[in-house]
């Protein structure tokens, strides 16, 4: 089997399986088994891709329709995009597993699993594509399926949340279209490798700076970064648990991926400007997200604000831009995906026991007494988010802070270091409300709720990565070594 097909498979398997799953709509169990099988297959494919890329030491490129590189669309699996794809597929498979054991009405709809697979396609495709316009198409696919999955939520405000998400993302997509138009006028190409080469050779066209700003806006909306975060907390309050567990953990990583690509491939010359913006936005976001999380009334909303804060840490690391800081950003992003997905699933499973399905603290106080296992997992996950040793969150934070010391960026370091304490405050406030407070006498929790197997697996994986962190750190450092030499990427895509 030629290896270049490995890049295609994670993008090709989910939509094909989704089409078949729609045909299987009248057989619930068959459809669920088929769709979950497809999700696992595509996870295995992306893992194989990562393994092959890492052991071969060069990117795998698939030219769609066999058109040579700058003219056709290329799918590029280099170490960064393959790592991100594996991370996404892993959490998506976890989210799917949660959806299988979920008691939400909306998970029973015949279109739920196909839409989930399309979400997987959009996300993986956006990470693997090597073409700016193709990125727009995949991002739209992602937004469409994400909004549809939210609009059917059991929560009565699902449609309102989906409307906000869709509307803001649509405006962001318009920004991306405008950016690709501007770059096309300036350089006559949309292939990322070709663009990188041409921008490096001649950064003078007047539309390059607007394109850069529009791309920053697009990725900030996708990543729910501080000034463009408005859709995110509302979205997470109302969306079905398996959907927002995926959206808050890996879909926002599309923004992180975008910034990594922008600073190390597309705009290497102008990277200093982007980095300066990212440090400021990240440090503000850390505080904003942390304080927002402390002040909320709802466990899911708290975790949504927490995502804003945690993404701030990653953005600051990208902003420092030293090799160690970039490696820290990748490790932190990976850890945050696993932990945040697990935490949101735990909050969702507690909410599924509440008499009225909601995650508002007023309704779920004391419900944890019936769920000791969820309590242990939540405590572990919270320690991971706050960066306390046994979990992988500690490794990420340690790398991040040591990279800050190395970069001698003491002011942002102090700002985000202090904000780390806020994480501890909100996580343990939630833990104490749900698991330590006695259950009010008049509240009768439901005897059954969502299954805990998916968050348990994710937390177990975080624990394993916390104790044996070496492979992930090695992978991140190898990725950074590739990112430091964008010529490898360009040569692999364009040939020669």
């Amino acid at each position, binding site marked *: 089997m030629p290896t270049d097909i490995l890049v295609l498979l994670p993008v090709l398997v989910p939509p094909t399986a989704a089409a078949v799953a729609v045909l299987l709509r009248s057989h619930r169990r068959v459809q669920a088994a088929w769709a979950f099988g497809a999700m696992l297959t595509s996870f295995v494919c992306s893992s194989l891709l990562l393994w092959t890329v890492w052991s071969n030491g060069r990117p795998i490129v698939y030219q769609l329709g066999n058109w040579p590189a700058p003219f056709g669309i290329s799918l590029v699996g280099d170490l960064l995009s393959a790592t991100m794809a594996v991370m996404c597929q892993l959490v998506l498979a976890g989210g799917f597993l949660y959806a299988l054991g979920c008691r939400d009405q909306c998970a029973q709809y015949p279109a739920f699993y196909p839409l989930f697979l399309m979400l997987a396609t959009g996300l993986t495709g956006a990470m693997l594509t090597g073409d700016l316009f193709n990125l727009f198409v995949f991002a739209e696919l992602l937004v469409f399926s994400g909004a549809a999955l939210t609009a059917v939520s059991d929560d009565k405000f699902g449609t309102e949340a*989906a*409307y906000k998400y*869709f509307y803001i993302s649509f405006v962001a997509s318009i920004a991306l279209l405008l950016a690709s*138009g501007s770059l*096309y006028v300036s350089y006559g190409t949309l292939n990322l490798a070709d663009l990188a080469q041409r921008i490096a050779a001649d950064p003078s066209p007047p539309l390059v700076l607007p394109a850069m700003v529009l791309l920053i806006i697009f990725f900030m909306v996708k990543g729910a970064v501080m000034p463009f975060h408005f859709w995110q907390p509302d979205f997470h309050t109302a969306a079905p648990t398996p959907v927002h567990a995926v959206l808050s953990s890996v879909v926002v990583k599309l923004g992180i991926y975008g910034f990594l690509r922008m600073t190390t491939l597309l705009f290497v010359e102008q990277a200093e400007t982007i980095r300066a913006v990212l440090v400021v936005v990240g440090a503000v976001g850390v505080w904003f997200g942390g304080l927002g999380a402390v002040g909320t009334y709802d466990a899911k909303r708290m975790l949504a604000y927490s995502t804003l804060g945690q993404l701030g840490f990653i953005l600051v690391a990208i902003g420092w831009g030293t090799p160690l800081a970039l490696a820290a950003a990748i490790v932190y992003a990976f850890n945050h995906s696993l932990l945040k997905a697990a935490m949101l699933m735990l909050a969702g499973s507690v909410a599924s026991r509440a008499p009225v399905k909601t995650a508002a603290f007023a309704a779920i106080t004391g419900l944890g007494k019936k769920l000791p296992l969820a309590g242990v997992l939540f405590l572990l996950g919270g320690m991971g988010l706050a960066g306390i040793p046994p979990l992988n969150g500690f490794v990420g934070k340690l790398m991040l802070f040591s990279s800050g010391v190395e970069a001698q960026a003491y002011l942002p370091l102090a700002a985000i270091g202090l904000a780390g304490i806020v994480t501890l405050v909100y996580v343990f406030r939630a833990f104490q409300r749900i698991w330590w407070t006695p259950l009010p006498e008049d509240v009768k929790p439901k005897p059954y709720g969502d299954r805990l197997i998916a968050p348990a697996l994710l937390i177990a994986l975080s624990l394993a990565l916390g104790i044996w962190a070496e492979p992930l750190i090695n992978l991140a450092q190898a990725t950074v070594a590739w990112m430091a030499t964008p010529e490898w990427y360009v040569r692999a895509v364009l040939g020669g």
Partner: protein
Amino acid sequence: MDVLLALTISAVFAIGVFQLLRRNLIRSVIGLSIISNAINLFLLAAGVYRGEVAAYANAVGQRSDALPQALILTAIVINMGGFAMVLSMLYVLSVRYKTSDSDEVKGLTH
């Protein structure tokens, strides 16, 4: 001709932004639609402003670029799907809240 096209695009874009910022939800969706049309015009301008002959024509002269037109076709299809989706969600919202004023749609804010 270039100036005329640029002025048209900017005028359409400005009208779109103005409508987008209205409080009425339906007007703001119409604004979104107008903006996306302005972007399509912009992409078209990216391709035609140097060419005089259609891309497929076998005539003498500088050929215009076909790629932006393919991009516009894709963007039109995606935008159509997007508006179908936005309008269907808007319908659900207007039935539930009995209003199209965006300030009244606040079930999620406390």
